[in-house]
Every structure is written in C-alpha cells, then in structure tokens.
C-alpha cells in the first residue's frame, strides 16, 4: 500500500489509506485522550473526548472515526480543542459516582487519568448527580451502573469480538445502564471470559473475586503463560504479599499470541492454587488408608520399588519442558504413556507431506480451513483469535466439522458433514483454488476413532500446505516430539506425572502406582504413593507449542513444593524392558461423542471454586445432521461415571450404546 503524509500538530506523519487519524497520531507519539476507543474494538465515536481540529472543517471531529486523507492538517492541542475536551470530560464526570476511594479500578482507571490531565478544574454544573443505584451481580462479574460512562466498550467486546452479546443497554437517556438479559449473566449465556472487565475504562464492570481485595498500585505483576489448555495464553498475575489477587489479560497491551484474550479458566481459575484439594505432604498407602510421610521417606519408597520392578511412566502434556526433560533423564525407559498419544498419532501422519507451522504463521494466509469440532471448548482463546481474524482483518474461515459451532456464524462456508467426505469433496477444492490458505486443526478431532484416517486424507489432499495442529494441552507438541508414546500400561510399577487427576484415573495400570499431582481427590486415592507437585502458577519453565519459540512460565507465588527440585534429587533409574506394542481396542459401533467442556478441562470445575460456580451439569445433547442422529455427552464436571465411560473407550472419546 502506498503511504501519504498528513500533518498533525505541525509534525509530518506517514499514513496509510484507511487508517484513522487517531491511529496515525498514536504511532507518531501524539497523545489524544480517548474513552470509547479501544485498539481491539470497532471505533464508535460515542464519548467525543478525542475531538480534534481539522483545517477546513467547520466543526471539531472525532479522531477515532476520522479517516486520514492526503495533505490533511490536524491540530490536537489548540485552545478550542482543549476547551471542548475539558467540557466533555467534565460532563462525563458530573454523572460519574466518583467513589475512587473504594473503587477497585482506582489507580488504573482511564477516567481518573484522563480527568486529571484534561478536565477543567472548575465545576460549572450545579445539577445533582443522577444515581441509578442498580447493582447487577453475577457469579463472577458485577456491574456497578453508577460508575458507568456508557462508552459501550463492553458491548462491542462481548457482541462483536467475542460473539456472545450478553450485555446491552437498558432504558435510555440518563437512566440508561448496562445489563445482561434479565439482569442475569448465567441466563443470558455469558461465557465468563472476562474481556468486558478488561476493556472497561472505569470501575463499572468488576471482577467479583477481586472486589475490595486490593489496590492496583500495591499489586506485584508477574507475566506468565497459562498451561490449562493448548492455547497457552500470556497473562498477568497480580499478587499482593505473596498471594494471588487476580489475573488480567490486558487486551490491547498484551503482546502475547492471545492478545490479552482469556477464557474462564485463565481469568478465574487461579484459585486452584488455594484449592481445598491441594496436597501438602506425600502420602503412602498403608493397609486401607493413606498415611502422611516426609519427602525423604517418599524418595526411599520410590527407590526401593524401582530397583526390583519394571516401571512405566505417564507424562502429562501440560508439564513444562524442563520437567519433561528431567523425567526423561531420571526415568530411562522406552515405555512412556501420555495424554498426547492421540496428538502424536495425528502429527505423525501429517508431518511427512505437510509443513507444520505456528499459529502466527498460519494466520498469515488469507483463508483458514478449520477442521474439527468444539474448538471453542478445547481451546477457547484460539477460537476467539480465529473470530477476530475474520472481524478485524476480513479473512475467511472455511469450517469443516460434523457438529454446529460458534464459529459458524462468521465462517465464509460451513461444511457440516462426514469430515472424510468433505475434505476430499470437489466443492472444498474449488473454494481453495488459487487461494493462500492454511489448515488449522483442533478440537475433538484427535479423540475420534477415525482421527488417523482424517490425518491421512489431509496429508494426501493438501500436500505441501502449512498446517497448525492446535495442541489439546499446552505441551502436547513437546511430548509428542520427545517420546514414542504407547497407549496402555503393562508393568508392575507405574509412575504418573499429572496436573489433574482424571488423567491418572483414565489410564490406570500397574500393581504399584506412584502419583505426582498437585491435588488429592477421589481419583488420587487409588494411588499407592502420592507426591505433591506445584501448579502452573508456581512454576518456572517453558512450554513448547508447534512453533520455533517457546513460551515462558514465571512463578507468581512461591512454594516449598517443587516437582523439579524433587526430580533433581532422585537418582537415575534405567531399565531395558522392551516397549510393548500399542494394542488399541477399537469399539465396534459408536453413537456418542464425549466432549470435555472448558469447565471440565483439567478438572477445573472440581478444583476451582470460581469455575465451579459458573459451570453447568453434564448433559446429553442430540443432533440431527443430514438425516443421521448424533449424540453428545457434554461433560461439565468429572465424576466417577464419566471416567468409567471414557476409560472403556480409552484413548478414544467415542462410546457405543448405553
């Protein structure tokens, strides 16, 4: 694109066609105050704080909506602009509650900042503040309507960027306030991603778990990566005196892959650190009960057991690279089992003929072929980023799946049919002809029985194209690359490294079970020796997505328990037991697909009270697609029943009748 110059405040600035004056000014270091404008949102021009003077224009114009044109002369700091700006901020402040002393936003409030810098110091208006006195309280989000300045950022975020449209404006005039449908977040289908809180310029939309818990200027900020799912979101963890107070995405400031968007687990799942299920001491099975022992004793038990018996290791694919390296180093065996088993099988089929690329590289192309269902459940933020590519950059999504999805409404073309049929079909081929496209694969696809077959078809039809296989867990790619994973245990001693215990329960094996886990629950009680580990918020390390760069983890809270330290102290165990071939039992006929919702993922709805408060119940959904009936078991919370069902078909997630 050819650039041209415009003059802002006497400075010659380079501008590109279609850019707004505000954007050009921002790039050139000229500050124009804003409220309703947000980098990630569609400009609206509602607050009028960004008024600027344009030579030749009779009136002041909002810089956020004004497109730059060649030879434009803009002034942002004339007396006329300053006066208008001060009046507008004064009018906004006039109906703002001004409860800064007990507002959680105070200290990072945009109205506070802009008000101090640009508002007039004298109060002209004698009219009394019009209080609405409506407080809307959801389980995790609250709205204080008196502080709202009606910039509509939250509505644009919720409706356009997230595609949920939970929030709306009720009433009109000075009575207008922001509310979800019927004043109820859960009823209106809120996903609790927390993006509305993140973009609110004042303290109107509040994180209820942070309410009156701390002041922003006292908080220590740690930037780390969330390992609760394969999206691996970069996020800010705020702590005060060694205790986590909240997690922020910082949309617009965050330079991570996720651009600051989070899901309910990332935003509110931090309370797993303080979960009542957290383990403090190792536990050994004696008789029928478990007994607390010290770490040294635990180490001795491991040494005794591993000296005599053959052993196998289960490696959770949400551990850090360093931990996985240490496990591989200390437990030298070819018998490794992992939940990345399905992912590895898929990866092996496609990597021969296709070019594995990172999400960022995949996003460079114009058309994305999104293969797989329920991406919004397995990797919510990746689904959001795909949505944003369409909304903000007008790229195209062609969705190939077997069930309806949230992405359908913004897809250019949706194929809901047998995936094998669609991928080889002429119509898909025609759509991609001559286009720069990339494949993005994820969701439930890896857990299907036909997953390998689909991988073969993809490898055959799209030879040479780039593919981003979205990892189901944060470090699936690293585990899949490092080990040769098998599907079932057959040794006398099995060692599990897990971050959530359903993984342990799902692939049980061995006579003596050693479990490394942060949590103790019903499933963990089946183990013979349990050793506590740290959660992702306490770890230092890296995770490796399918990309050349690793994502860093920084510990936000200190803990005495550390898996890394424990592993370093262990001696090296090696065995020459030959790996047993994977024997997969493929169910004959299946009619139900088990979908693990984002709440159930990593057993978050069990360990985290915040996530549990907004998760629903397990349910069976029925779909009729192209005349055939399909059933889905939608898991919102892991219990013994769900584990039994999944275990019967492990490692697949498709079950037969009954």
């Amino acid at each position, binding site marked *: 694109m050819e650039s041209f110059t415009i003059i802002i405040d006497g400075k010659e600035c380079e501008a590109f066609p279609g850019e707004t004056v505000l954007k050009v000014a921002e790039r050139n270091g000229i500050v124009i105050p804003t409220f309703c404008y947000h980098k990630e949102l569609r400009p609206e021009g509602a607050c009028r704080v960004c008024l600027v003077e344009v030579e030749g224009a009779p009136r002041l114009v909002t810089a956020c909506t004004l497109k730059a044109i060649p030879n434009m002369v803009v002034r942002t700091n004339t007396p006329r602009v300053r006066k208008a700006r001060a009046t507008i901020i004064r009018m906004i402040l006039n109906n703002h509650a001004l409860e800064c002393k007990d507002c959680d936003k105070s200290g990072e409030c945009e109205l506070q900042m802009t008000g101090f810098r640009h508002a007039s110091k004298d109060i002209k208006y004698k009219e009394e503040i019009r209080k609405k006195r409506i407080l809307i309280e959801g389980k995790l989000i609250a709205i204080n309507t008196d502080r709202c300045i009606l910039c509509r950022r939250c509505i644009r975020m919720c*409706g356009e960027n997230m595609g*949920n*449209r*939970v*929030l*709306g*404006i*009720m*009433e*009109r005039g000075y009575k207008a306030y922001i*509310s*979800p*449908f*019927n004043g109820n977040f859960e009823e*209106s*289908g809120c996903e609790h991603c927390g993006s509305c809180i993140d973009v609110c310029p004042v303290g109107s939309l509040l994180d209820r778990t942070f309410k009156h818990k701390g002041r922003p200027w006292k908080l220590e900020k740690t930037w780390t990566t969330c390992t609760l799912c394969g999206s691996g979101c970069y996020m800010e963890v705020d702590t005060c005196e060694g205790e986590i107070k909240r997690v922020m995405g910082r949309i617009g400031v965050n330079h991570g892959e996720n651009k600051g968007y989070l899901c309910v687990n990332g935003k509110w799942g931090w309370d797993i650190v303080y979960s009542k299920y957290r383990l403090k001491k190792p536990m050994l099975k004696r008789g029928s009960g478990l007994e607390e022992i010290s770490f040294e004793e635990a180490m001795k038990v491991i040494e005794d057991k591993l000296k005599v018996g053959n052993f196998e290791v289960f490696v959770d694919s949400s551990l850090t690279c360093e931990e996985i390296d240490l496990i591989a180093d200390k437990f030298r065996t070819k018998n490794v089992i992992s939940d990345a088993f399905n992912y590895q099988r898929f990866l092996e089929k496609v990597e021969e003929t296709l070019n594995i690329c990172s999400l960022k590289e995949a996003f460079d192309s114009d058309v994305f072929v999104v293969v797989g269902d329920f991406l919004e459940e397995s990797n919510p933020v990746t689904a959001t980023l795909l949505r944003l590519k369409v909304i903000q950059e007008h790229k195209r999504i062609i969705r190939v799946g077997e069930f309806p999805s949230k992405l359908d409404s913004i897809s250019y073309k949706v194929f809901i049919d047998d995936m094998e049929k669609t991928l080889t079909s002429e119509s898909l081929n025609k759509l991609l002809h001559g286009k720069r496209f990339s494949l993005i694969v994820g969701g439930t696809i890896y857990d299907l029985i036909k997953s390998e077959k689909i991988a073969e078809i993809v490898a055959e039809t799209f030879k040479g194209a780039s593919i981003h296989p979205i990892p189901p867990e944060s470090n699936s790619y690293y585990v899949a690359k490092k080990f040769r994973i098998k599907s079932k245990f057959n040794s006398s001693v099995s060692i599990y490294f897990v971050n959530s215990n359903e993984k342990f329960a799902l692939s049980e094996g061995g006579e003596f079970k050693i479990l490394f886990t942060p949590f103790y629950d019903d499933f963990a009680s089946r183990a013979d020796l349990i050793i506590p580990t740290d959660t992702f918020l306490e770890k230092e390390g890296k995770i490796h997505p399918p990309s050349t760069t690793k994502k860093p983890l920084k510990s936000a809270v200190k803990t005495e328990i550390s898996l890394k330290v424990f592993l370093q102290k262990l001696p090296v165990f090696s065995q020459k037991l030959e790996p047993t071939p994977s024997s997969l039992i493929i169910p004959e006929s299946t009619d139900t697909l088990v979908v693990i919702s984002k709440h159930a993922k990593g057993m978050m709805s069990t360990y985290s009270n915040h996530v549990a408060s907004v998760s629903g119940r397990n349910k069976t959904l029925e779909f009729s697609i192209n005349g055939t009936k399909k059933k889905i078991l939608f898991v919102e919370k892991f219990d013994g029943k769900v584990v039994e069902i999944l275990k019967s078909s492990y490692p697949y997630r498709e079950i037969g009748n009954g």
Partner: protein
Amino acid sequence: MDNLNWLVKEIEKLKRNSPYPSARSLIMPALWIVEKHFPEILPEHMEVIAKILGVKPVEVEEIARFYAMFHTKKKGKYVVRVCTNLSCMLNGGESILQAICDHFGVKPGETTKDGLFTIEEAECMGLCNGAPAMTVNETRFTNLTPQKAIAVLEEFKRKENGKDNPQER
C-alpha cells in the same frame, strides 16, 4: 403456557410473511404483538421472540426497554396517553393530564386500582391540529377539555363494567 404457545405461532406467522430481508427487523413487530395481547412484556416473551428470530435475548430486551410504548411493567387494559408537547401544552394539555390523574387518584405513569387505565404523559403524537389531544390505546381524541377527557374515560369504564370479565384478553 397456552398463551406462550399462541405467541410462538403468531411470531412464526410473522416471520413467514416477513417483508424484511433480516429477522432482526421483526423484533419490533413481534414486541408489538406481545404489547397488544399481554398486560406486560415479560422476559419469557422476549426469550420466545429471540429464539424464533435468531437474535440474542438482550437485543430484544434493549428494544423493549428503550421505547416508551412497550410496557415491561404491568399496564392497565387501556393505556391513556396525554400529549404534553408544545402545541398541546399551549392549549392546556398539562391541565388535562392533571385533571385525569386527580379524577382517578393516580400519578402519571401509574395504573388505576381497577386495572383499567394506565395514565401516561406522552410526547408529540402528530395530532397538533387537534391540540390538546390524547389517545386511548389506539383511538384518538382531539380538541379536549379536562371535562371532555374525563367523560371519554368514564364512558370506557361504563362499557367495561357492563362486561363480566374486564381483564379478558
């Protein structure tokens, strides 16, 4: 429940005969059906509309609560709107409103005890040539005086009292 089923059928009929390209445009006509046939627009009704038209419930609620002619709170059988905009005000619209309110013992925006009339102060209804004006549901009454206005409403009341059940739909 029967009423809701009836509403579902009505809105589906509306959708079938829609002159508009998008279902969103039907939110207001659909709300109008509820407004006409139910004493108030309830969240249940909005949910039904949202589901059939394929929009989010909050979009329906926004519209229902924005316009003064949609009632999300219980209204009387007859909604009496007295204009107090410029032409009507100059010709005594405010005194008519006052007289009616005094007669029935209510304030503007309230419903009479028998549930018959909801008295509202309205903006311009385009009846300036016959100012001062008022409407009872969708019937116009122009060139009013306080006495005339009360007489009109008393006539409505007399007719209603003749019927067995004034609250029937």
